[in-house]
């Protein structure tokens, strides 16, 4: 299976995503240059973290106009899997691949820490390797992670099981204490109605090795492998 990892100017987790795919999964990966109209036959597209265009104006606002995003949108429309992580989530929202928007953290400060999230829907392309309600620990590192949408949209994604991850506290509850950025309904990750585009603020690609603190991200990549390969 081949993963295409988009490099926008200012992407800085493209390398981590590449290493995750190649070293931890043993799969093939290519960098997709933002100026090219070519996914190079990628089965899965990763929109990685970072600060595309410096996150100037709004996180993800400028990157979504990159030439390669035409092909990414086409790929998504055909049902191809897209994994948006952190800045990739922000870009996916700006591009309309996912609903809502990601605003400045409520604390107004960047937050970098290992954080607990609960798997809210283990029946997706990206989460079948987890159990429903499983509490996992992933690093976050962002300044604009407060997921926001109007109530109707929130009700709709919640009602259709499209909230995939929620921030939780030590007791596993989605409380304000467990919410690192003020996200509506503690949302850490959502999926589109086609079930093939996921956006999440935590970094699964940074959680693949116990040496670095957690390997709770492995199941996410393995879920994709299992489903896409099948």
């Amino acid at each position, binding site marked *: 299976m081949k993963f295409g990892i988009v490099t926008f*100017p200012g992407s*800085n987790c493209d*390398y981590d995503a590449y290493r*995750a795919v190649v070293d931890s999964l043993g799969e093939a990966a290519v960098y997709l240059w933002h100026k090219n109209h070519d996914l190079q036959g990628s089965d899965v597209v990763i929109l990685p973290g*970072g600060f595309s265009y410096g996150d100037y104006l709004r996180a993800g606002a400028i990157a979504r106009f990159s030439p390669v995003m035409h092909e990414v949108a086409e790929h998504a429309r055909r049902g191809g899997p897209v994994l948006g992580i952190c800045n990739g989530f922000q870009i996916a929202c700006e591009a309309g691949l996912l609903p809502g928007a990601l605003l400045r953290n409520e604390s107004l400060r960047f937050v970098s820490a290992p954080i607990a999230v609960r798997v809210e829907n283990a029946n997706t392309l990206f989460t079948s390797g987890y159990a429903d309600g499983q509490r996992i620990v992933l*690093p976050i*590192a962002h300044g604009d992670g407060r997921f926001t949408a109007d109530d109707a949209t929130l009700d709709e994604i919640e009602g259709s099981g499209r909230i995939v991850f929620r921030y939780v506290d030590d007791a596993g509850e989605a409380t304000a204490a467990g919410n690192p950025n003020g996200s509506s309904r503690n949302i850490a990750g959502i999926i589109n109605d086609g079930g093939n585009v996921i956006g999440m603020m935590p970094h699964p690609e*940074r959680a693949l090795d116990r*040496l*670095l603190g957690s390997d709770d991200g492995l199941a996410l990549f393995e879920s994709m492998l299992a489903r896409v390969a099948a």
Partner: protein
Amino acid sequence: MANVNPRPGDPAITPVLVAEHGLTPGEYEKLVAMLGRMPTFTELGIVSALWSEHCSYKHSRNLLKTLPTTAPWVLQGPGENAGVISIGDGLAVAFKIESHNHPSAVDPYQGAATGVGGILRDVFTMGARPVAMLNSLRFGSLESARGRYLFGGVVKGIGDYGNCVGIPTVGGEIVFDDAYEGNPLVNAMCVGLMHKEDLIRAKAEGVGNPIIAVGARTGRDGIHGASFASEDLSEASDAKRPRVQVGDPFTEKLLLEASLELIRSGHIVAIQDMGAAGLTSSSAEMAERGDVGVTIDVACVPVREKGMTPYEILLSESQERMLVVAHRGRESEVRAILAKWDLAAAVIGEVIAEPVYRVTEGATVVAEFPGSRLVTDCPRYSPESREDPEVAALRAADVSGIAPLPDEIDPAWTLLTLLSSPTIASKAWAYRQYDSTVRTNTVVGPGGDAAVLRIRGTNKAIALKTDCNGRYTYLDPRVGGRIAVAEAARNVACTGARPLAITNCLNFGNPRRPEVFHQLKEAIAGIGEACIALSTPVTGGNVSLYNESPRGAVYPTPVIGMVGLIDSLEHITRSTFGTAGDSIVLIGDTGDELGGSEYLALVHGVVAGAPPACDLKRERAAIDALLDAIASGHVASAHDCSDGGLAVALAECCIGDQSNPTGLDVHLGDLGDVSPRGALFGESQGRFVVSSPAPASVMRVAERYGVPARVIGSVRPAEDGFHIKAGESELDSDVASLAAAYHAAIPALMSSERLWSNAARQPALVNA
């Protein structure tokens, strides 16, 4: 030599103008002698920048020459943009520390951000990919609005810049002390990794090779930043406000990628950051290193504003710019690489055979200097040095007689007081704003003793730390210099790493004052001694002088940035206790050494006494013993004793990891002639707190190295509490109170209700 005439509109060269450029009458004479004529305004500007303290090291060069700089693993010592050491497997580590104190005092956010940007460029211009950032920060009290403004702004500036470029900020140190009230210190360190064969030096070579300006356009910002960094902070600094430069980390990220690609392409000969004194210093230094002449046409430099003069273009410190010497005929290849990263490039000059440094504006020569004398002829000073008798008296004071406060009856009160002082308390409020995990190599991030990064493709890791105790250095500069190195080494060793080499940032006051020059001289001597004893040569550094405000000089603060190597990932050791039941071993001797301690300063408001002795042979032996014990697999955790002494070190071992707090039961046994408070809060050097399931093995190793070690107690579950018996004294606390004191202190001080206003942007002018 060409004919050089004043440019229409140039101000006349008067003694006042010369003085405004920071040149002494003697220095001006030297300049005239070198030129054989009067300088033009442009030339005066060039020399004022290159002969500023910041660029020329005129007061420190003679002292720096005494530092040890060689070892078989040192590939590049001082003299380049960054030092480079080999770590085996064909890999090398480039690293350097630099100050951005004065810009951060004027605008903490931009000052700190651009400091990070500058040191990043110093590392990637060596051909190394930056893999980690550290910092070392000093502020006045967080009780003052200005202290909070500076601290908050600096932390945000460091975070926003490093996070955006995508380099993890993994460690550092932060100290709050009134000595820094008028003049904060902001030192940033960058560490990069490379294949040895990619090492490139900033040396212009090859007559006819083009000189290319790369990156951001040149604006009017930061003109004369280098000379600004070379004077005391005063009211007058306020009027120099436009000197603040705005950083653009996004462009920096593009520059980083493009530069590494350029270096690997083989199309270029040399590359250097346009940092302090901008185009002037980068071009002059590259020419001097290569022993060639250069000619630069300022009319070819891409500018941001219309009507910029040669003077302004040469001295601008606009950020995110590089100077490249390419192989002749490869200009279009160079341009293609830069265009890929949306970066502009302009050929602005050429390497020439004639030994001159020449600047033209179109066809007109606007500045010309003979050969490399511009750099090499710069004045050197070894001013008078004399210890301040007041400091000598403070050091001689007997502090053991200071009566304990009534509250100290309960040593738990003292411990809680220390744990909640911002200098000792958890710095998570700051480092949670730094992305510490990007690039997925961070094994131990901020919060531990030293940061640890794995080296992909090997079974190795590197350990990194910055350290200094300014109070010790104030009381005894030589001992303070030694301890800065020793403490950095101990921190690195606690993770299982062998200390390899250091970079240093010497933050001192005005060197023309004999008592300051004395501090500088002695501290450098102490650093040198420790580097020899610990086999950690100096590979580079930075000198920041004139750190003074109307309150006086800062504490002399020689910050050490150390790199160590861990041979095997299995040896990576953490600082916090892991398992209840493990024994606690204290390695090293405890004396009754309260002089210069955090305890005296915080609880008694006293800065006096001799700082703890630093016996370098013992330091070396203790480090060797610890590393051996770690390698033999018997060490569960290791932490060094520093600020706040043994009691604080033990508490940190219990509460440092919030997800796994532990308690302990410790009996210090017979204290001999050491007082209980000396045993608990004294800061004797050369000590480690180690937890181990096999303490006998640890002690056997220690014995082999002749290092004292004894079991002082055991790790307990957190519910069992925290108990230390020190002679007559019993320290009892529940673990949660210790943790609350330690973790809540800085967040409480920085709560949003305590925001600063614009008044806090003005430096407090004491005595003025």
